[in-house]
């Protein structure tokens, strides 16, 4: 079990800086998820922790020991790759045992430990097969078994589920969560799938263009996005974002087609400031009282069926407003509707800088 500390980590390819300055402390037993769009540098940071990518500047330490110049094998890590990276010429047994053989573990001991891991992951029937004869889900289990067997201090997952189909992905996600519950190994997990991040993480590190946008529990990230980027990235369907101007001493927001009151003191607003005002579709509910202060009104022009819920949307100024409503009482296209929300559901961001204007103590 180990703590991982990244201090001022920096990565350059020639003159091109991919990771400018990365600071993070991963606590013992913690499950950390790096989340971000492709190309945001999340895999690069993971590979620097693994030792597969050289660190240009800064320090990475695992378990109190600086590992900058150590080979992957000397870092106490195990890694699961996106495309499984199984050895195609070895049987499943040999794939799992390969790392232990290097450590000089006795054949009897290897046999015992492989048996244990194989039982845990339900791989017994395929132990003599070659990787190409296994399904994607089984191959990923082998990759996890291969990582587990070394009882590493740190687990690193590089988008392990993105090659699987949706159903299998949900199942494997559950297995990984259960595994972490049992083993409690410090884990860093990279994904671009917010559902994986939300369900697995103790804390999410949301990255954009090599920089940390926000670090926090899934709930913090969802409920209190620190920036416009986080607000737009997290949540399905995506948050409604409307440009607005602060008016009347910071107590109102004015935009195309709306003028709404703001709870005084909750946000750091200056009169005349350009802001972006956000509302999650799920925070909106239908109301018959169009005169209520916290409501937006319009004519429905699209109803998207999602099963239990429908996504109802209407144009408002140059933007669109969507609401996630129960499917049973859905409006029809062409209906005039009003959507009400709680005052606390408002997210307000500085339009230029992108940071949240919510007061920290709220």
């Amino acid at each position, binding site marked *: 079990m180990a703590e991982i500390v990244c201090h001022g980590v920096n990565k350059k390819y020639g003159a091109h800086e991919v990771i400018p300055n990365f600071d993070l402390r991963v606590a013992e037993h913690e499950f950390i998820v790096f989340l971000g769009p492709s190309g945001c540098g999340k895999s690069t940071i993971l590979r620097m922790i693994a030792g597969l990518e050289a660190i240009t500047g800064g320090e990475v330490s695992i378990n109190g020991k600086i590992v900058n110049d150590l080979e*992957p094998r000397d870092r106490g890590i195990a890694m699961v*790759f996106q495309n499984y990276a199984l050895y*195609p*010429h070895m049987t499943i047994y040999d794939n799992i045992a*390969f*790392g232990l053989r290097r450590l000089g573990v006795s054949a009897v001991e290897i046999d015992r430990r492989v048996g244990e891991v194989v039982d845990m992951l339900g791989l017994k029937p395929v132990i*003599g097969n070659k990787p*190409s004869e296994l399904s994607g889900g089984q191959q990923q289990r082998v990759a996890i078994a291969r990582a587990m067997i070394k009882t590493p201090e740190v687990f690193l997952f590089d988008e392990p589920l993105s090659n699987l189909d949706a159903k299998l992905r949900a199942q494997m996600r559950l297995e990984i969560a259960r595994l972490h519950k049992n083993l409690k190994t410090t884990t860093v997990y990279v994904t671009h799938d917010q559902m994986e991040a939300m369900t697995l993480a103790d804390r999410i590190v949301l990255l954009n263009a090599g920089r940390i946008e926000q670090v926090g529990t899934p709930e913090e990230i969802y409920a209190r996005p620190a920036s416009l980027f986080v607000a737009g990235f997290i949540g399905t369907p995506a948050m409604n974002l409307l440009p607005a101007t602060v008016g009347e001493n910071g107590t109102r927001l004015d935009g195309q087609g709306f003028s709404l009151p703001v709870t005084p003191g909750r946000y750091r607003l200056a009169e005349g400031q350009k802001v972006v005002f956000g509302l999650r579709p799920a925070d909106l509910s239908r109301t018959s009282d169009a005169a209520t202060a916290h409501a937006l009104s319009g004519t429905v022009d699209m109803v998207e069926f999602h099963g239990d819920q429908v996504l109802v949307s209407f144009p408002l100024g140059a933007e669109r407003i969507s609401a996630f409503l129960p499917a049973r009482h859905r409006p029809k296209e062409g209906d005039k509707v009003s959507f009400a929300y709680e005052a606390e559901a408002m997210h307000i961001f500085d339009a230029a800088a992108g940071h949240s204007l919510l007061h920290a103590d709220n």
Partner: protein
Amino acid sequence: MTLSRILAKTVLWLMAALVLFPLLWTVLGAFKQTVDLLTPVPRLFFAPTLDNIIYVLSRQSVLQALINSVVVSCASVVIGLVLGLPAAYAVARYPSRWTEEIQFFVLSLRFLPPVATAIPLMVIWLNLGLYDSRLSLIITYSLMTISITIWLAIPGFQRVPKEIEEAARVDGYGAYAVFFRVALPVASRALIGALAFSFVLIWNEFLIALMLTTSEAKTMPIVASEMSQLGMNVPWGILNAAVILLSLPPVLLLGLLSSFLNALFSKNPNR
């Protein structure tokens, strides 16, 4: 079956016949007596004889040439692999600004007409006192097999997924172990091609062998060709038998290699 499929199959069968018939005719010719060979109307049915085969096999020069060919081909192929594969791996896995130049240089060695190099080589080996020896042939051929192996193995190593090698590094293996225990076996499918190609090329090589040998180190192609120079009457049966003997080792080698490959990657036989 649609008309286009029938047509396509017919064309394929015709092409196959075009390739296979001369081979079949050569095999038949090896078992024919001269009478059956020198008829104006080709005979498909005849009384077979082993005379040609026995004649070819009983000649000391043939046996000697066969040994020479096997030794020289195998040795130069092995040297080509031992020196060429690590070079190819280095070029494939650690690309630099020289990578393309190295690849082109290696290939350009093969642009040189063999005649242009054969005469200087002859002089060199004569001066070194190694003319007409297996050693000189092996060294000369190794230059060819190394370049072929490098050229053909680079794409093979490039196709090995990088993550597999990285997984081995995380599993604790160093660069050499990764090469021998992961990259080499995973790329073997492609590498076998390089092996087979350089073996066949050396096995069939004629011009340099002709220039560098006179008696001791003569290889099969030289001896086989000499059989057509026995006089005015071309001994067709013997020639056919010699051709069969010359063709068998590469065919056997390819068969062995492909079964080895199947064993390496396909289903577990115990299941």
